[in-house]
């Protein structure tokens, strides 16, 4: 009896030693903070999905230089306080090497304060220009989402080309909308565009006819709506309802099939800037982003049985950028940061990234294409 016990114990010891031998290299701990629940869940959930998808793929292939990736993901629910708490936790308890996220501009602004002080790289998935600017105060912060500044310049370039010199802007009262409004008002003069009416609506508002009625009474030749969630779809419907025939231009925040579904017939003819993902099938084969977008779309659909999300693409690009940096630099946060800053010609879903000390977003207006909604789908224009 004793002998069997001894043999059993030795066998178990040998087995566990063999098991451990496979995990010789320490895992790279990647922190993730996303708005998985809450009003921005349409951003955070796909982002979390993508992070997990990329990590799973890397780990199945043996990790980065043999180091497996260990993601630790928290849900900030779109709340600034929770985002802050999670960032502290990732730093002190989980000892993350870098953080991907958050999903929103205002949560990103809070988290970057913490990561800057802790000298830890942060790759945000939010759009606000202030996240990576001024560059001298954002040494440790990067972002993968296209900036609203680029979206606005593409929109105004379109307006100028089509002689739409008087526009009305209708912006949502959240951080995204206010940042967009600043850009729309600030960039108008350089494209020869005059903003003849500016109206605001709430994120949860269900009736924008008063604002649109005022716009109807103005000299506007086009309406630019800047918002996310269901409200821009209602703006489209209200516009049709009031018999307004002037073109409606939306922000890249509505570049998803859900918007077309909610707006129904009213979506026809709407123009917006979008990442190349929504129209990748219409891109020429010579476009380097086509292959990357296709791969992403197919993988996402196969794994999650849901249409691919441009928002998830921000996290997809962020994790892949991080993977490249980790492969080059190992587990030293400072070296990871340097590697991220040295990213050149990285073809992502959201655009082609060329980071530099002055530009931690690495994208230019070419990351956007102008699309028009036609017959329930996005069509590439001009």
């Amino acid at each position, binding site marked *: 009896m004793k002998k069997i016990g001894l043999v059993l114990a030795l066998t178990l010891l040998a087995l566990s030693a063999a098991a451990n031998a496979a995990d010789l290299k320490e895992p790279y701990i990647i922190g993730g903070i996303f708005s998985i629940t809450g009003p921005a869940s349409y951003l955070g959930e796909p982002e979390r999905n993508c992070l997990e998808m990329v990590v799973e793929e890397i780990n199945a292939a043996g990790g980065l230089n043999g180091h497996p990736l260990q993601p630790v993901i928290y849900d900030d629910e779109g709340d600034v306080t929770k985002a802050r708490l999670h960032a502290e936790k990732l730093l002190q308890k989980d000892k993350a090497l870098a953080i991907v996220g958050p999903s929103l501009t205002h949560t990103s602004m809070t988290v970057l304060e913490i990561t800057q002080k802790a000298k830890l790289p942060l790759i945000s998935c939010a759009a606000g220009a202030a996240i990576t600017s001024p560059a001298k105060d954002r040494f440790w912060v990067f972002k993968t989402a296209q900036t609203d500044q680029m979206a606005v310049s593409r929109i105004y370039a379109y307006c100028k080309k089509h002689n739409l010199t008087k526009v009305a802007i209708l912006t949502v009262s959240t951080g995204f909308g206010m940042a967009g409004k600043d850009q729309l008002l600030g960039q108008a003069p350089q494209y020869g565009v005059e903003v003849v009416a500016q109206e605001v*609506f709430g994120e949860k508002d*269900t009736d924008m006819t008063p*604002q649109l009625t005022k716009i109807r*009474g103005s000299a506007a030749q086009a309406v630019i709506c800047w918002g996310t969630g*269901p409200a821009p779809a209602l703006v489209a419907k209200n516009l049709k309802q009031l018999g307004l025939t002037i073109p409606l231009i939306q922000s890249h925040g509505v570049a998803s099939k859900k918007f077309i579904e909610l707006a129904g017939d*009213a979506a026809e003819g709407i123009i917006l800037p979008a990442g190349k993902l929504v129209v990748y099938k219409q891109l020429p084969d010579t476009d380097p982003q086509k292959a990357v977008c296709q791969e992403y779309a197919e993988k996402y659909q196969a794994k999650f049985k849901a249409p691919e999300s441009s928002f998830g693409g921000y996290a997809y690009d962020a994790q892949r950028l991080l993977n490249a940096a980790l492969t080059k630099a190992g587990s030293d946060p400072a070296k990871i940061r340097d590697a991220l800053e040295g990213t050149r010609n990285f073809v992502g879903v959201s655009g082609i990234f060329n980071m530099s000390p002055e530009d931690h977003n690495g994208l230019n207006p070419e990351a956007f294409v102008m699309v028009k909604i036609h017959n329930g789908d996005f069509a590439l224009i001009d």
Partner: protein
Amino acid sequence: MPTLSSLLQYFLSGLTNGAIYALIALGFGIIFNATAIINFAQGEMVMLGALCAISLYHLIPSLPLAFLGGVFLVSLVGLVFERLALRPVRDPAPITLIIITVGAAVFLKGLAMLLWGKEAYSLPSFSGNAPLYLGAATIMPQNLWVLGLTAFLVLVLEAFFRLTLVGKAMRATAYNLRAARLVGIAVGRMVQLSFGLAAALGAGAGILIAPLTLGVYDMGTMLGLKGFSAAIIGGLGSLSGGVLGGLLLGLAESFTSGLISSSYRDAVAFLLLLLVLFLRPQGLMGGRR
């Protein structure tokens, strides 16, 4: 300077929203009359009506079926709610019951979030989307449905309370519970019926408004509060007061949004409520109690 057509536009959209508030206010009024409590879960009935109808429509694409089905299901919810959450209460002080309704509202909202998620869903308009022109102002066929059906429901409700035995029995219960019991009216059943009826009205409001405003799990909170304000403004307990309060609120919101600023839209309901409570607490049509 706002033009006549924009004023007309504000008037028309205000009337539509007002009709919805009126239906919700009626729900508050009916329950208040029968039980002297405020049912703060009324807003959630609106939300459930909209979402149930949308789900039914996805199963069987028939709008009349979705409408009737939604109203029926939510009436059941109202009946079951009264039976399970309110009637068993041992010490039915009004404040206890009111807090239970608040709890029920939170529960129903959470349930809706689990069942339908956080996204918005659309329901097709009952008769298409071609706007009708009144001068330079437009009105959607759906707005006409809202106004028409609300007017119809109000008339049916009036007829029900005045002409049918059950309606009269409900009024008797509301007037004097003890006397009603003494003459043999099944008071408990009348109370339960009032909850079912209020839920049905709320559901109807939700299904009518869903093509215009989309159905979301959290649409009930604001609508419930505004419907409540409308009920108080018109006079809690008075049916015509509920309708008047609703219409007034809708118009006030619309004109404030249009003429002053759209940021104040939600504040109007509560400002009006405060005004009425300060100046004429029994509401415009004067309460029955």
